[in-house]
C-alpha cells in the first residue's frame, strides 16, 4: 500500500508516494531522479550509496525511505556551491587524482564530508578508519586519503559550510 511522504533532500522538500518496503536509494534515484548516489552491492557492503542523514553517513541501500521523514538528507548533488563551483572536497578529489572510474566517488566524498564536519583535522589513521566502509577498487586509496587531507587543510583555513 503506497503512502505519500515528504523527504527533505538537499534542502528541498519532495512529496513522493512510496511503499513501506521502498529503499531510500531507489526513491532517491528513481522517483526523485538524483542518480549521483550509486548502488554497487545493494546489501550495505560497499558504501557507494552513502548519503548524509542529519549529517551522519548512512547507507541508503539498506535504509527504508519511509523512516527518513523529517530528516535532512544530503546527496552528492547537494555539495557543490550555489554558483556551481565545486565543494573543496570535490575539488580536492579532482586535483589529487582520487577519481578513476568514479563509481565509489559520490559515497566516498559523502563519508569524507561527514568526517570533516565532525573532525576538521583528522589523522591519516582516522581517515582510514572513517572511510573503511567505502570500497574503491581502482585507486588503492592512497590518492583518496591525500585528497581528504588536502581538503581538510582548506577546510580549516577557509572554513566551509
Amino acid at each position, binding site marked *: 500500500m503506497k503512502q505519500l511522504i515528504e523527504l527533505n533532500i538537499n534542502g528541498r522538500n519532495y512529496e513522493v508516494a512510496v511503499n513501506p518496503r521502498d529503499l531510500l536509494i531507489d526513491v532517491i*534515484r528513481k522517483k526523485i531522479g*538524483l*542518480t*549521483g*548516489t*550509486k*548502488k*554497487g*552491492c*545493494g*546489501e550495505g*557492503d*560497499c558504501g*557507494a550509496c552513502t548519503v548524509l542523514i542529519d549529517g551522519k553517513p548512512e547507507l541508503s541501500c539498506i535504509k527504508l525511505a519511509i523512516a527518513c521523514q523529517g530528516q535532512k538528507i544530503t*546527496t*552528492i*548533488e547537494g*555539495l*557543490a556551491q550555489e554558483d556551481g563551483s*565545486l565543494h573543496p572536497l*570535490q*575539488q580536492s*578529489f*579532482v*586535483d*589529487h*587524482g582520487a*577519481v*578513476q*572510474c*568514479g*563509481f*565509489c*566517488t*559520490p559515497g566516498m*566524498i559523502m563519508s569524507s564530508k561527514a568526517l570533516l564536519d565532525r573532525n576538521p583535522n583528522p589523522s591519516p589513521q582516522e*581517515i*582510514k*578508519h572513517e*572511510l*573503511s*566502509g*567505502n*570500497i*574503491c*577498487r*581502482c*585507486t*588503492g*586509496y*592512497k*590518492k*583518496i*586519503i591525500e585528497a581528504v587531507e588536502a581538503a581538510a587543510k582548506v577546510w580549516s583555513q577557509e572554513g566551509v559550510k
Partner: protein
Amino acid sequence: MSQKDTGSKWNLTPQGWNLEGVPAYQDQTRYTQVGRSVPRVDAPAKVKGEAVYTGDMTLPGMAYGKIKRSPYAHAILKKIDISKAQELPGVLAVLTGAEAPNRWGIVPQTANETVLALDKVRFYGEGVAAVAAIDEETAEEALDLIEVEYEPLPVLLDPFESMERAHEVLIHEDSPGNIMHQGEQVYGDVDKAFSECAYVLEREFHTNYPQHGFLEPHTALASYDPQSGQMHVWSSTQVPHYLHRQLSIVLEIPMNKIRVTLPTIGGGFGGKGEASSAEFAACLLSRKIGRPVRVTYERSEVFYTNKGRHPAHMKLKMGLDQDGYIKAVDFDNTMDKGAYSGWGVVVLFYTASMMHLPYKVPNVRFRGRSVYTNKPSTGAMRGLGGVQPRFAMECLLDELAEMMGVSPYELKMKNAIESGHTAVNNMFVPHSEYKKCLQTAVEKSGYLEKRGRLPFGKGIGMAGGYYISGTAYTLYQNYKPHTSVMIRVDTEAGVTLFCAAADIGQGSNTVMAQMAAEELGVFYEDVHVQAGDTEIGAFDLGSFASRLTYASGAAIKMACVEINQKLKETAAGMLGVRADQLVIKKREIYSMYETKKRLPWEKAVEAYTSINGSLVGLGNFSPPRRKGIDMISGNRVQGANIGHSPTYGFSCQVHEVEVDVETGRIYVKKVTEAGDCGTPVNPMSVEGQVEGSILFNIGGCLYEDQKLDASGKHLNPNFHDYKMPTMMEMPEMDTNIVESYDPTAPFGVKETGEGAVQPTFPALVNAIYDAIGVRFYSLPITPEMILKALKEKKEKEG
C-alpha cells in the same frame, strides 16, 4: 629545467634524454602536454554525481529486464513453463534460450555460450529465462512464476576430477576429456639443459579464484527501432567492438544496424572484457516489445556470470648453471576454465609466454590445458595469464637463490633482460629498464639490509614482472588496424578526436587528449574526445591487454601528420617562411630559426578552413605481426598475441609484512615499487594505476576467493563474504616511475595498467617466508594457513 625551444629532438640522445640528462618526458622543450600530471577530463562530472552510467539512464517507455537463474550447477533442462509469468499483469515479454540459439564467445573458434541455457545448465546461476516488465518488482515477481524442471547431473568442480571422470560426465559434448584446449610449446633442448644444470628445483603452485570486484554491476540498455531495424545499445563494457560483433551474431542483425554506446563505465579490470547476457537479453527483449529495455545485474549475478581469474595448478621446474644463469624452464599448467570458454585459449598461451621474460631463458618447455568445470566461468582479469605463472617463477627464483646462497636480487639482476633482447620464442623487447626497476625498488626499500635480519614475524620480499604493451589479436582473424583515430580541426569545435576506445576509469580519454594536444601543438583542454561509440568513433578493438595508450598514441601521431602539414603550409604563406621550418607548440606556429615570425595556431586554422572547410586526419595502428616461421632463423613464433607485442612494461615490488603469530593475520606494512612504463603520459594517472594494482593483488593474495559448496552453489556472491581490501588494509606505498623512454614507441610510452599487478603475489609470499620461515604455494594465504604452518614448524623444530 631548460626553457629554450630549438627543435629539441636534436638535443636528445638515442635513449630519449636531452643533453642535460633530463628524461624526455620532463623536458619541456620536447613535450608540453605529455608527461604532465593533469586532472582527468571526466573527474568534475564524477565528483558532482553528474556522470551518467548505464544504470542511471532511462528512456521514454523503458521496461525492465530480469534473468531467471539456475539453482543447479549441472543439470539437464527438461522443461520451462513460462505461461504463468506471461499472464502476470505488467509483464511485457518472456524470453527463453531457444529464441536465441546462436553461440557467442570472444574467441570465435571456441565460442560456446548462449544467451540463456538451451538444453542444460553448466554452472550455478546460469540464466534460463528472461522477463521484461513495466518495473523491476513485476519482473522479479514474474521470475518466480517461471517453472523449470531440471534433471541434475554429476557436478565437476575440480579440473583434475573433471578430466578423470570425463568418460562418465561431459560438460560440453564437443570437448572430449572435458578439455577446452591444450597445447605444448617447446624451445631448445630442455632435458639436455637440465642435465647440465648445477641447481635444479621443482615445485607445485596453486592459485585461487578471485573476481574483479568493479563497483558498477553490468548494465545494458537496448532500444530497438522496429521501423528502421536499428538497435542501439548502451552498455557498461570495455570492448564495444567485440560486443558489437557478438550482438550481430546472436541477434542476426548486420553490424551496421547496431550501435554500441558507452556511457561512463564503473570499472572493468577485464570483467567487462566480454559480452554478457545482460546485453543480449536487453536487446532480445527490446526487439520483442519494440520498447527500450534495461537490464541491471544484482551483485550476486555479477559473481555468477562475470569471468574471474583462472585458478591455475602449476608445476614449475627451473635449472641454473653453477654461475646462476637460468638454463632451462619446464612449466606445466592446468587451468580451471569453469563452464564456458571465453578468453580461455588466449589466457592459456599467455601463461606460456610468461616464462620467456623478464629473464633470459634459453630452453623452455610448456605444457598446458584449460579444463571445463561446473563453476562460473573464468576469463580475463587484470594482468591476465601473467599473475599465476609470475607467482610461481618469482617464488621459485627466490628458493633457487637461497639454494645458491645469494640474494634473490643478485640472481634476478644477473638474469634480467636488457633492451634489444630477443627471447627464444622470438618475442622481441626493443627497450627495457627492468634492471633499473629492480635496482630502484631494492635500494629505496633497503631490501638487502633488511632481508633475513628482521625479527621473527617481520619480513621483506621482492619480485619483478613484465607485461605486454600495445598488442592484441583481432580474434576473428582479420588483419585490419587495431585502432583508428580520426581528428577534426576547425573553427567550430577546435580539435575533436574520434575513437571508439573505451575509458573504463583508467583515464584513456585524458591520455588521448594529452597525446593529441602534444602532437598538434595545442593544450589538452582544447581536445574534445569522442570515444566509446561504435558509430561516432573510429574503430578500436577495446580496452584490454594494456594496449590502448600505445595503440591510440601511434594512431594519433599518424592522424596529426596531415593536419600539421596543411596548417604549416597555410602558415608559411602567411608568414613568408618555408613550411618545413615551422614548429607548432602551445597554440602558436613559429619559425624555428626566426622565432619572431609567429602567428596564433587558430589563425592558421581559420585561414585553412575558410578556404577548404574542416581539416581531417586519419591514423591507424597495427602491432607488428610476428607469428609463423621466421624465414631467416627458422624459429617458430608462438604465444597468443604476446608474441606480437611492440614493446613491454616492467616493474619490481618490495613488500614488507608483519605476521601476527597469535592470530595468523598478515599486515602488509609497506610496498616499494618501481615501474618502467616508458614515458608516463600522465604521471598522476600512472601512480593511480600502480597503487590500484598493488592493492588489487594484495586482495588476491590474502583475502579473495570465490567459494562453492559440493553442489556447486556459490557461497559468497556478495561483498560481505567476498572480502576485498578496504582502506584499513592499505600499506604505505612508495611508487617510483623509473626514467625510461622507448624510442620505438609513440611518445616513448608503454603500459602501466597490468604490469604493476604482476609482482604482488610473489613479493608478498617471499616476504612472508622472510618473516616466519614458511613458504606458501597456494593462495590466498589465510590466517588459518599461517597458524597451521607455524604449528607444524614448531612441531618439526620440536
